[in-house]
């Protein structure tokens, strides 16, 4: 069992856990991910590594409760644990001093963009970060991002905090204001956000790295379920990625593939909610939010 040492509730649906996994923390680098299983009957799901502490032997992961497995994970408390954590998987981010770079994080994607921004900053880059979320409540790690960025722009879709805009708006403005200055861009967030970031940066011809989160089973190259169509053929996100050149990804195919099991996911959530209903009723009766 991989024990949870710390838990933070970042929003109603966003949780942070710090987990004991020394053999992975030893090796983890920015850009990599792990596969976790919550319990005996659980599924293998990929989670990006938000942070790691080699000395303490811990990994930090942030996840949003979007399906049954992540909802169950959300119920785990300090002292509980994961049945399996395996990794670090995928290629680490290639870090060097590129000059000026932009790191874009959307929603829960701010978490994995953080160690990349930090490593880029440590390598001597001028880091401009843009972080955004649907609404203020879903925004996370603003202070941590600020600490590793030369400039930080915050947006929310509904204007409840920071600038009322999609992340692509300030991104476009920077690229227009500083032609030829930005050497590289990283974007991590919902697939639709990454698609539009890539579309925004393409006319400026600035290399744009995205970190894809696809359906996976083993995470080691065995199942091929994570394949993504690039302009020159299919690649496996788990072993060839998770980072890819955003300008070469077939985004429509990717969006279609990640929704393949949507009906099963919904059915699982409904069934799970049903079975937890009595507990929820009790909690509501006791006045717990």
């Amino acid at each position, binding site marked *: 069992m991989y024990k949870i040492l710390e838990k933070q509730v970042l929003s109603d649906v966003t949780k942070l856990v710090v987990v004991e996994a020394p*053999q*992975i923390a030893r*090796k983890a680098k920015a850009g990599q991910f792990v596969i976790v*299983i919550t319990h005996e*009957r*659980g*599924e*293998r799901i990929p989670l990006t590594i938000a942070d790691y502490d080699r000395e303490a032997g811990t990994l930090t992961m942030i996840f949003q409760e979007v399906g*049954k*497995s992540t909802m169950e994970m959300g119920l785990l408390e300090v002292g509980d644990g994961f*049945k*399996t*954590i*395996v*990794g*670090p*998987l995928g290629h680490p981010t290639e870090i060097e001093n590129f000059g000026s770079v932009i790191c874009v994080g959307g929603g829960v994607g701010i978490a994995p963009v953080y160690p990349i921004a930090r490593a880029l900053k440590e390598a001597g880059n001028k880091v401009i970060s843009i972080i955004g979320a649907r609404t203020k409540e879903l925004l996370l790690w603003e202070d941590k991002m600020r600490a590793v960025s030369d400039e930080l722009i915050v947006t929310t879709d509904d204007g409840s905090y920071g600038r009322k805009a999609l992340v692509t708006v300030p991104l476009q403005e920077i690229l227009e204001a500083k032609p030829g200055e930005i050497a590289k861009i990283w974007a991590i967030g919902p697939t639709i956000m990454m698609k539009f970031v890539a579309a925004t940066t393409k006319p400026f011809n600035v290399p744009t790295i995205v970190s894809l989160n696809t359906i996976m*089973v*083993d995470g*080691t*190259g*065995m*199942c*091929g*379920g994570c*394949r*993504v*169509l690039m302009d020159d*053929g*299919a690649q496996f996100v788990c*072993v060839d990625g998770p980072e890819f050149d955003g300008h070469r990804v*077939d985004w429509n*195919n990717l969006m*279609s*593939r990640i*929704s*393949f*099991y949507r009906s*099963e*996911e919904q*059915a*699982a959530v409904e*069934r799970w909610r049903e079975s937890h209903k009595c507990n929820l009723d009790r909690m509501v009766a006791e006045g717990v939010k």
Partner: protein
Amino acid sequence: MAELTKKERMKIPRQEMPVQEPEDRVENFSEVALGYTLEMARREAERCLQCKDPHCMEGCPVEVTIPEFIEAVRVGDMAKAVAAMKAKNNLPAICGRVCPQEVQCEQRCILGKKGEPVAIGRLERFVGDFELANNTFAVTKGPSTGKKVAVVGSGPAGITCAVDLGRMGHDVTIFESLHTPGGVLVYGIPEFRLPKAVIRAEIETAAKALGIQILPDYVIGRTLTLDELLAQFDAVFLGTGAGLPMFMRIPGINLNGVMSANEFLTRVNLMKGYEFPEYDTPVKVGRKVAVIGAGNVAMDSARCALRLHSLRARTNGVERGEVHIVYRRSPAEVPARLEEVHHAKEEGVIFDFLTNPIEIIGDGKGGVLAMRCIRMELGEPDQSGRRSPIPIKGSEFDMEVDQVIFALGTSPNPLVFVNADGLERSKYGTAVANQESGRTTLERVWAGGDVVTGAATVISAMGAGKRAAADMDRYLKGESTW
């Protein structure tokens, strides 16, 4: 039982294996072949002529002393049968179920020249199952050598190698990338052919007796690398198999509903997708499924799809679909075990021979509408010795399917070769290793099984694990140098 004459023995018919009837078994994932009773086993054992110069053993990659164990079964001395078996084969309950005996031991049985060979595989399974139920044979660890060995991968090659090394007195640690040990036995071979409980029992019993430590969730090449293993262990065996799926380079392979047999089988077997939503991993089965290829993995995929159809028909009331095996060669070239093909046909799998997909056509919503195929004819024998299939011009046609499963073989996973300077690989990505000793081009590293040969059989991997263990033992005891 009175001794029979040779003539009388030869009159005994080969004992049929009791099986679940096809119409019953497509409704469940329980084992198809039910195993001999003691009476059946003893009667089958009576058929063995106890040849003075037995050829059956030559066909066994792990050199089981076949006449010896069969004679013990015949006289009902099961403890002796188990001891004879376990002297050579650590996993008889598994081998008895998945070995292609018809091209190994049984092919060489003298009885097969005129009639049917002794059912060596079924007897082997009987002995293996008897041992799992009765524990008559204690595998013991040899006098400790103080040497530490890392075995990478817990499939047939790794487990066999680890158990032999343990019996020789070495301290063995197995690193497994998945969350459950067993490798392809667990993720690839379905429950109805090889129950998970059998694998678990065989592995757990041996590991416990020999003090073998099994560490799941370790991806060598990521969590630890080969150079780090070499710093911590005296010797390393790589039995990482061939886990990378192959897809055809045709349009449409990234549509939803197109998948590797590895993905389909892993969802079904390892993750128990057929019990979704009791288990969390979903698995889809199309109304009309095409499995491309005709090896054992293709048969396993097709038969899993049939069972999923039955289960879904029962729970959701949907109409049962069709499952096709689409193969570019003819029935004569089918690489799967005879028994698997037979079972698949009995269960209702439809075989489309001399047919090859050239494109998968989308439904406009991301899914599969049809598969464009071309008819093939057989030409001259190719490198594999089999007649090569040649497309027939103008014979294209569309096959209406909504799921396509590629079972075209697999190649070794390159992850293990990270930080393994000096470890040579072939152009196919397999590790270069001496066939007899298993030695690779990197000192103190041995390899065997599919990682060396490319996708092959469970028993050939076990044979390689065994030979490597013997050589590792000589090296570790200072009886041979690198």
